[in-house]
């Protein structure tokens, strides 16, 4: 028995030593007595020894030479073969103890009483005290009781109290967990706990919001009491949240859910120094973009306009800057991004493919904090301002480019005439009115200005505001009232040499009110229901002559208005431990409102100027056309084991708003069109099934998911369609059927020094444009691949933390080349050569692959300094792969030339300096 304890004792040494200070000592001894060695060491270092002189063996002599040696090396040499044990406390105190005495003196109730006072080290041999308990960041071992030969119990109960070390207040709702044994307990309101532990070694972890995560090793041999004192730790907030949700993928009923947290992406390599949560999203299965430098996301074979992008509950129409190269979301204020690409909750609607729910962090309610970054293209500053301590706070973030003035300052005329700048700002106010009422309000603005040639200037902006009031009627009944308003607009100013200068503008606004209730009936039923209504105000475009000489006729395409309303209810029905259903129903109702004039075309003929037979006028607020219907949102989960489940879901969606774009990829000057008499809403049905398995206590996640999606009335365009300022858009568009299917694999390592994920998707996205009229048929009316059909998509994201200061990261992306319409021959017309094109999307551009690497270097960890900082060095496209973004053909001097364009064809290194204060 004695031997066993001795071994345990020694085992714990290594752990205890782990927190040694870094002080190095150079010293040498020749046949010195132990007491002399101690005194000499004290003389050359800051270490102070605490011991009882009689313990030391006065006969023993010691020799040794040390150069820059850590203290524990000297100590282990000195005491290695003696009965003396040592303990190095954080403040360089070294406490010696005589092994046998401690063992003999370790009473059963040693931890039985709360020890608030530091034991008098001078007189008593002390191994542990409360001071040590709270300061240790490594794993400390605590022994409870003494093994008795008579003991037959397999489990013992440990009870005690957990207190906040600073305020001395009890910590309620603290989770005590033994992950490998699946034992979990929570402290009560007074911080008391009682946990049953199997005999022997238990690795216990403590978790709670705002409390430092702590691990202890408890060796239990009898029932006992132990009190813990824990420190607050606000900086680790993010990590705690993640741990709470770590088996979400297996447990929830919904399919196709992805959550990204900004903390996860801190170390991912950057392009031009910008941290970008949306770019990270595209490394996950099922989410892709048409290419670098294209705005918009294609989710599970859907068009870019089929995503409901919400920033603090308000729709953001264009969440990118600079042609999609940068995201318009401030990385420092963004909290989480939840992506629903499979089951879309009944509370969301109006877009076919996905919901991107982006939420802004709440400001720090305790102290003023700031964070910033200086990069090659933009600089960034975020401030956390507490307004009323613990009650309300403000977070403000701003970001701007400083490229513009540099371009202006240059000698080169072409560059002088160029312009490219953007900025965005966000503010969020958070107020905890009382226990039952919580208010959040956000405002956001982003603007881009750029010019491609000297005579035209483009700009676009997003403006968002939202208010959310959460009110709890009681424990079971909770509500949220949301008001959100969004504006997106763009302008083109043309100032050329002739008298056709103009100012062209586009604007869309939407205002939504949503009331959502959550009702927990009992353990089995969780209801979520509500009503929402959204008013669209679309100004499809106006053109004004610029200057008095301009002969451009002012034209204003009449405003479009529509009301999109919905009733929704869903029940999270927990049938048994194993079976969980999420049954949702949404009823969408859409009304296109006057004042409007609608074109009526001859039936059975293609819509064109020639077949227009009549127009019909509608008065203000008169309903011109209605669409709508029920949307089923159902999903089910069957859990084989707590960490292995199967899910299936079915979804139906309506979409009443469409982008108009005759570019292959989305661009910031695409306009939107509301469904009206001649343009029908898009609809989609999606079926998905998946298997989800977590290994090693959620350390590894494995998800496999398949889907099949059919859609109707997807908008496409006639070749070279004119979409801007067109009063009869319906004559230029085609509506066809879509079909998409795929299988997605995701394996994720969530923690550890090496973490990251690997995602692979095989998918297809097809379109069919058929009609009885020749001019409306594309590819003979057969299914053809959409512009964003990329069957193979592989992403690997890996982070490796070398030390506390250095971490490395890399991502690798491989995608099948995007389909293109390829020229298959030439012809001559009027002396010029032209290209004769293949069927639409018959060929593909070369495959896309890219490797990025990055290094994060944290500043030093001195406590007293102005700001905490870190450097990020990234290289984008390390392999210098000249990834073709597109292949296009130009007739130059009567000859055909083929060009391939790529956005980043060489490695792009960037360095960013980030700071926090």
């Amino acid at each position, binding site marked *: 028995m004695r031997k066993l304890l001795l071994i345990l004792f020694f085992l714990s040494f290594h752990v205890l030593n782990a927190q040694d200070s870094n002080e190095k000592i150079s010293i040498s001894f020749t046949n010195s007595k132990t007491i002399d060695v101690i005194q000499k060491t004290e003389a050359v270092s800051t270490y102070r020894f605490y011991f009882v002189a009689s313990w030391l063996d006065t006969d023993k002599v010691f020799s040794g030479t040390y150069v820059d040696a850590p203290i524990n090396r000297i100590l282990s040499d000195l005491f290695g073969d003696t009965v003396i044990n040592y303990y190095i406390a954080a403040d360089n105190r070294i406490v010696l103890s005589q092994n046998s005495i401690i063992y003999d003196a370790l009473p059963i109730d040693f931890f039985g009483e709360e020890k608030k006072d530091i034991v008098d080290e001078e007189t008593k041999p002390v191994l542990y005290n409360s001071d040590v308990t709270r300061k240790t960041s490594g794993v400390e071992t605590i022994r409870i009781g003494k093994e008795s030969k008579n003991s037959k119990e397999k489990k013992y109960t440990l009870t005690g109290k957990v207190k906040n070390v600073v305020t001395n207040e009890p910590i309620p709702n603290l989770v005590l967990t033994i992950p490998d044994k699946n034992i979990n307990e929570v402290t009560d309101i007074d911080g008391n706990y009682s946990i049953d532990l199997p005999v022997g070694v238990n690795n216990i972890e403590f978790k709670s919001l705002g409390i430092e995560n702590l691990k202890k090793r408890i060796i239990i041999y009898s029932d006992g009491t132990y009190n813990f004192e824990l420190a607050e730790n606000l900086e680790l907030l993010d990590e705690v949240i993640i741990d709470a949700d770590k088996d979400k993928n297996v447990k929830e009923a919904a399919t196709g859910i992805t959550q990204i947290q900004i903390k996860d992406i801190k170390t991912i390599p950057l392009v031009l120094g910008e941290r970008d949560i949306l770019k990270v999203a595209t490394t996950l299965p099922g989410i892709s973009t048409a290419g670098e430098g294209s705005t918009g996301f294609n989710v599970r074979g859907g068009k870019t306009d089929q995503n409901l992008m919400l920033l603090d509950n308000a729709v953001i129409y264009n969440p990118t800057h600079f042609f999609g190269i940068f995201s318009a979301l401030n990385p420092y204020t963004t909290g989480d991004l939840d992506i629903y690409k499979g089951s879309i909750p009944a509370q969301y609607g109006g877009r076919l493919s996905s919901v991107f729910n982006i939420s802004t962090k709440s400001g720090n309610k305790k102290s003023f904090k700031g964070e910033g970054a200086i990069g090659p293209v933009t600089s960034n500053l975020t401030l956390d301002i507490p307004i009323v301590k613990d009650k309300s706070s403000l977070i403000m973030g701003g970001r701007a480019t400083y490229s513009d003035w540099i371009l202006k300052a240059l000698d080169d005329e072409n560059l002088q005439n160029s312009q490219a700048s953007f900025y965005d700002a966000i503010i969020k106010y958070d107020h905890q009115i009382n226990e039952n009422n919580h208010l959040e309000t956000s405002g956001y603005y982003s603007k881009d200005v750029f010019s491609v040639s000297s005579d035209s200037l483009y700009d676009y902006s997003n403006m968002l505001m939202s208010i959310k009031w959460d009110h709890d009627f009681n424990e079971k009944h909770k509500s949220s009232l949301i008001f959100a308003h969004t504006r997106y607009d763009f302008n083109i100013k043309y100032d050329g040499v002739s008298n056709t200068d103009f100012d062209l503008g586009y604007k869309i606004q939407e205002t939504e009110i949503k009331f959502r209730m959550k009702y927990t009936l009992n353990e089995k039923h969780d209801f979520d229901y509500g009503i929402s209504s959204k008013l669209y105000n679309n100004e499809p475009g106006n053109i004004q002559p610029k200057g008095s000489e301009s002969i451009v006729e002012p034209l204003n395409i009449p405003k479009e208005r529509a009301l999109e309303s919905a009733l929704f209810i869903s029940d999270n029905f927990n049938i048994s431990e194993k079976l969980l259903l999420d049954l949702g129903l949404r009823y969408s109702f859409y009304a296109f409102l006057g004042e409007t004039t609608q074109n009526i075309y001859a039936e059975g003929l293609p819509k064109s100027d020639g077949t227009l037979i009549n127009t019909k006028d509608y008065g203000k607020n008169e309903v011109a056309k209605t669409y709508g219907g029920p949307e089923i949102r159902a999903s089910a989960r069957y859990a084989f084991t707590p960490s292995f489940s199967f899910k299936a879901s079915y979804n139906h969606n309506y979409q009443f708003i469409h982008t108009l774009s005759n570019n292959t990829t989305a661009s910031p000057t695409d306009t939107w069109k509301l469904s009206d008499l001649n343009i029908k809403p898009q609809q989609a049905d999606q079926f998905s099934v998946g298997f989800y398995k977590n290994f090693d206590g959620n350390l590894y996640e494995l998800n496999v998911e398949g889907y099949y999606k059919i859609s109707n009335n997807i908008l496409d365009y006639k070749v070279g369609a004119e979409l801007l300022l067109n009063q009869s858009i319906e004559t230029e568009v085609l509506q066809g059927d879509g079909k998409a299917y795929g299988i997605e694999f995701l394996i994720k390592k969530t923690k550890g020094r090496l973490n990251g994920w690997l995602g692979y998707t095989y998918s297809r996205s097809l379109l069919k444009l058929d009609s009885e009229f020749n001019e409306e048929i594309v590819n003979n009316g057969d299914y053809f691949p959409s512009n964003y059909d990329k069957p193979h998509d592989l992403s690997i994201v890996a982070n490796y933390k070398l030390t506390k200061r250095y971490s490395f990261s890399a991502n690798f992306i491989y995608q099948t080349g995007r389909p293109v319409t390829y020229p298959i021959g030439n012809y001559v017309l009027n002396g010029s050569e032209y*290209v004769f094109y293949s069927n639409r999307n018959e060929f593909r551009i070369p495959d896309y692959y890219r490797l990025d690497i990055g290094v994060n270097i944290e500043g030093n960890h001195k406590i007293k300094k102005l700001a905490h900082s870190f450097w990020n060095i990234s290289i984008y496209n390390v392999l210098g792969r000249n990834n073709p973004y597109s292949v*296009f053909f130009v007739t130059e001097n009567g000859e055909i030339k083929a060009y391939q364009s790529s956005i980043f064809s060489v490695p792009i290194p960037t360095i960013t300096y980030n700071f926090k204060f």
Partner: protein
Amino acid sequence: MKKIKTYAIFLVTILVFIMNGCVEEIDLETLTFERVLVVEAVITNELKYQEISLSRTFKFEDGGAAPEANANVIIVDNFQNSYNFTEILPGKYVSSEEFQAQPNAEYQLIINTNDGKTYNSKTTQLTQVTPLTDVYAERTTDSFNNDGMAVYVDSYDPTGNSKYYRYEYEETYKIVAPYWVLNDFVILSYSPPFRYTLKPKTSEQLTCYNTSFSKEIIQKETNDLAEDRVTKFRVRFIPQTNPIISHRYSILVKQYVQSIDAFTYYKTLNKLSLSDNVFSQNQPGFFASNISSVTDSNEKVLGFFEVSSVNSKRIFFNYYDFYEGEPLPPYFVECTFGAPFLGSFPGDTFLPPMYQLIDEGKVKYYRPNPNYPNPQNEVEGKYLVVPIECGDCTKLGTNIKPDFWE
């Protein structure tokens, strides 16, 4: 300060990079190939032998259009007139008689190809006849701030029916060889002993004229304007550095009034053949014309049958009208002097360099070499020569003055 500058350059590099992306020319290869009929048929209201061209699409690696020979081409109207076309060159068909498109008549093109297929056009009417009000030139800058000459047109249709215009031009310019001299170097003996003489030129080589035709699609619509008026529409811009405006320049601008269908067809064609910028491209694809196959409705046909009214105007201007006292644009080629070795060494049977260059038509005699003889360089020749284009304008144009030249 230096640091800041370096930084600025770095930033700008990045921005330029982003804005222009990286565009490089690539080699084309035909993956699959369809031999599709291409029809070029614009009938106008000018009384003349109307022309129609037929060809087939060709592979990128092949040189040029394959003419479609031995076809039967005919135009019929709704007054039971028919106009037969005969093939004068492979793929080139000319009406057997002179005719002009008449208002109110409806024309249809019918083609029977050698392989037994029949193609029809939709019936088409002559568009509104609208004269060009004015064609004029001004010195200005283009959107990249390059100095140069712009040619503008004005047109006005009080009826408001024209709306859709397409322009073509034919430019003729005078060329003056800058190193023209009276004498030519004439070889008398091509074998040893080599002999030559200097004697006056026998043909006009100082002043020539050259004509070229517009190739791009130039269109203008007035649909969005308050009245059907084309004002100061630029059909041509010639940078000051272009030698064609060095002396006297003439441009004939032709204005075609198009139907909306023809206008849309050409506009789409043009849109697909221009690159906008890296970030936005049009959806390319096949687009239907007004000609289709009677035999197989799925067969693709390229080109458009158009019946257009046409009106043209010619203007002239001189370089010094706009650039008085300013240096001329650089010449078409760089005129560098050379002094090839004239003599030969005993026993040599090949032509001396001077003879050879003259014989190959690469250079023209200019004048005696003032450095001759050059002790440092014994092979320096006795005469200075210039590239042939600098001494003989017929290499760049014709020495026959066009009839319209004034």
